[in-house]
């Protein structure tokens, strides 16, 4: 007795071999690498790797290898982080107009592993370093803006149709329109209902007035919110892509939040500034005649307004806006073809271009300014309650002389550095966001802390594992060694499943692995204690083995299901790193049931099965 049929042994062996294969890639080390993407208006061609090789040879940076990635990217590998940085510098210096670079790490897997689609575990930001930001989209303002837009549309429609109304006011999420008599109101109702099917329009009489109440139905509000979120995600994606970060992730979280994860990002301050800004722009003429001193004293000339430049200098600008941010279709940084100094190139849409041409034709030789308007939202605690305030920050970011009339495409020069040009272009391109956003959560992990976390996590896995292995071998002898083998395979299987699912491994995730190492032997302990009991009760060794595995089975399942429930709850309520703990706990429990019940049974059958025994080494 106690023999598994061949197919069962083979099945178990097959699963274990598959586990070993899936876990294998994790043995390869990570190369410091550079991800290369094409800059705006360029693309990665077949000649690109050669160009980059040449640039690196010129700079005397040894290249370990270069390969194409999915989505038109290149990956250049290096032996040391120092070479990686020098290489980035070299590429930026000579090829920055055509390529963008981002520092990253990449495992040097052999071709056959890639071909099989095998991959390493994906490490969380707390292990590899990086920035995790949660952004809240101000839905209240998004809705307000929508109601405001509708108010304008309703007003225009009524005017065009010559339906006279007394007042049109906003009342929360509703628009109230008062009419003089019932007839005009009914005419208005008919018209509005036909034109604005998405609105909920109701006629009533309130304190003697004839009123139409137009409201946004629930479904419409949802649509507006979804749109606001989507537009913000798109804008953030554009900004992040332009930043040159490898493997960025931008995802929606719930109804109104966006999670941005940027692994290995180097300069958190600048990143956050670019992510968190809600910017729009206005092009205005500079008032060269009015007195700046008078304006500073509080008496600006009629038709002009006082602004400040970034360096704090006051400047008078005409009140009339030439072009606003939403009329900008594209903006990019580059160099002026004549002077070679950094420049920003701007493209306008048709309407904006017409306005710009009219104004610049009349004002050649006069200065024009770009006002950068940022809505910064901050949450303050007032009497313990969070209160949101939005502050409008207006700054003149550039003043330039109109050299000649221009329209659709023009350039601004006179910027301090190419970095400034780059940032300005980025902000211009982002245009106006649909709704104000605010960073409500941020976690930045420096690269050295990430490495420390990995080292400490590994060390505790090793020590914990070592102690358990030692104890089991001493306490259960041969059976203990079987349990130990099962435990090691369990660890391999956990890593295999994590690699296969590409679930993110975090520091709490490693803690989960350590915990499951301690708990995984429980199944073996339950079985072995049963076997000992059976032997004490005078049963034969073979019968004891059989009964031990048999009787312990339902206990093991029952006991593990409760832990699984806890893991599932953790997963659904947890965020970020905690989810990582839930995932490894869940996977560890499932794999431990396989290895402890089936795996160790198969092994014990191989050792003891089908022969006469006098005693067991347990």
């Amino acid at each position, binding site marked *: 007795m106690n023999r598994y049929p061949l197919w069962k042994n083979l099945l178990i062996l097959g699963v274990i071999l598959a586990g070993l294969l899936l876990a294998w890639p994790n043995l390869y080390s990570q190369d410091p690498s550079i991800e290369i993407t094409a800059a705006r208006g360029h693309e990665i061609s077949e000649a690109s790797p050669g160009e980059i090789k040449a640039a690196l040879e010129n700079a005397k940076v040894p290249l370990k290898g270069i390969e194409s990635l999915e989505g038109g990217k290149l990956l250049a590998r290096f032996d040391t982080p120092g070479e990686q940085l020098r290489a980035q510098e070299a590429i930026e210096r000579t090829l920055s107009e055509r390529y963008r670079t981002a520092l990253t790490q990449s495992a040097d897997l052999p071709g056959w592993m890639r071909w099989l689609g095998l991959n390493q575990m994906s490490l969380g930001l707390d292990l590899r370093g990086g920035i995790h930001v949660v952004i809240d989209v101000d839905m209240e303002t998004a809705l307000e803006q929508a109601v405001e837009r509708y108010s304008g549309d309703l007003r225009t429609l009524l005017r065009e149709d010559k339906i006279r109304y007394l007042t049109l006011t906003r009342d929360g999420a509703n628009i109230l329109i008062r009419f003089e008599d019932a007839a005009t109101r009914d005419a208005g109702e008919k018209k509005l209902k036909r034109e604005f099917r998405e609105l909920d329009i109701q006629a009533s009489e309130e304190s003697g007035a004839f009123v139409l109440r137009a409201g946004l139905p629930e479904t419409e509000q949802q649509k507006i919110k979804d749109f606001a979120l989507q537009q913000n995600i798109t804008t953030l994606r554009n900004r992040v892509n332009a930043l040159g970060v490898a493997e960025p992730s931008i995802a929606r979280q719930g109804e109104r939040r966006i999670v941005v994860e940027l692994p290995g990002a180097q300069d*958190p301050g600048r990143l956050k500034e670019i992510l*968190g800004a809600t910017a729009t722009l206005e092009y205005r003429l500079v008032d060269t005649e009015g007195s700046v001193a008078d304006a500073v004293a509080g008496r600006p000339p009629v038709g002009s307004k006082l602004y400040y430049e970034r360096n704090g200098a006051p400047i008078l600008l005409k009140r009339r806006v030439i072009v606003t941010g939403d009329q900008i279709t594209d903006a990019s940084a580059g160099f002026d073809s004549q002077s070679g100094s950094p420049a920003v190139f701007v493209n306008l849409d048709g309407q904006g271009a017409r306005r710009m041409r009219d104004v610049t034709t009349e004002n050649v030789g006069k200065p024009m300014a770009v006002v950068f308007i940022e809505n910064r939202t901050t949450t*303050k605690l007032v009497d313990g309650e969070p209160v949101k305030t939005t502050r409008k920050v207006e700054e003149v970011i550039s003043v330039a002389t109109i050299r000649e009339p221009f329209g659709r495409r023009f350039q601004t020069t006179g910027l301090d550095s190419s970095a400034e040009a780059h940032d300005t272009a980025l902000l211009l391109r982002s245009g106006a966001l649909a709704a104000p956003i605010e960073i*409500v959560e941020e976690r930045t992990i420096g690269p050295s802390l990430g490495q420390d976390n990995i080292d400490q996590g590994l060390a505790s896995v090793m*020590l*914990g594992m070592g*102690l358990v292995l030692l104890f089991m071998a001493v306490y259960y002898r041969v059976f203990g060694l079987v349990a130990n083998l099962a435990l090691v395979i369990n660890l391999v299987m956990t890593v295999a499943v994590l690699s296969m699912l590409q679930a993110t491994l975090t520091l709490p995730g490693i803690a989960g692995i*350590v915990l499951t190492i301690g708990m995984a032997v429980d199944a073996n302990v339950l079985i072995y204690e049963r076997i000992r009991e059976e032997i004490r009760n005078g049963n034969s060794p073979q019968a004891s083995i059989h009964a031990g595995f048999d009787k312990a089975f339902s206990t093991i399942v029952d006991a593990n299901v*409760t*832990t699984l429930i806890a893991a599932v709850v953790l997963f659904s309520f947890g965020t970020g790193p905690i989810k990582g703990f839930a995932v490894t706990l869940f996977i560890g429990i499932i794999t431990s049931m396989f290895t402890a019940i089936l795996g160790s049974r198969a092994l014990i059958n191989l050792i003891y099965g089908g022969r006469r025994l006098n005693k067991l080494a347990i």
Partner: protein
Amino acid sequence: MTQKRTINDFDIDFMRQRKPAAWLSGVVLLVCLLSIVFRGFDFGLDFTGGTVIELGYAQPTELSDVRAVLETQGHGGATIQYFGSRTDILVRLAPQDGVEEDSAKLSDRVFKALSQAAQGQVELRRVEFVGPQVGEELREQGGLAVLFALIGILIYVALRFEWRFAVGAVVATMHDVLFTVGIFSLFQIPFDLTVLAAVLAVIGYSLNDTIVIFDRVRESFRRVRKGTVIGIINSAINETLSRTIVTSGTTLLVLVALYVLGGETINGFALALIIGVLVGTYSTIYIATASVIWLGLSRDDLLPVKKEGAELDPLP
């Protein structure tokens, strides 16, 4: 056949001590509860909101030097402490009261000032910022998570066993949760998200333990035809005692490894689990099984053997 002597051979009358044990638990839990109500928790950043900045200095640095720099930046009220070693310093800033500054810029500004003061011999290891509303949400979600875990487990145990066992299991689990968080409140150990995760893992572990004994109790009731309820429960506990000790032992081994080597961030997590495993083992014996006795379990409740225990296939 010579069988080596093991700890299987216990015969301890656990249930005789169930009353003193109940008193002990009652008093300890009362202290925990009072502490939670009056002292509260030293909630971590995740729950209070605010900003934490972890700095790695090249040389051991005095906290007072860091404080002096922070004072010039208008953050005299910041909490400053060593984090693991004397080169690693943790600065915690409370949620801003009426200051109009971007959280993102705040941490940058503070770090720049500190970096200047240390002539660049300092590295920004970690920044965490949690907005006030997020902190509130995380607190709520944490409470809900514990509640849902308990409900889910209650349902499972009630389905697999009998309602008395389910109640016993949940009473014991709540005992463990209350005790664990009570210790964190009593000694004002920082309570953050990872500790909450540990508390949920304690729920899982404590139940795991309880169910193993319940399983044996159920089996004994069916197998042993004579003997009192208390006698059978006692022998079930004794029979599983070696397993209880071995499993708790191996789990504690790895947790101690985690506590010692896992680093500061994971310390609270490991500590919560160590407390939870210890108290979970105790409560399984003295609280879970004792509750079942108090709830009036009799042999008849378990005997109707209409295919119970056959819900799961035996080992294939």
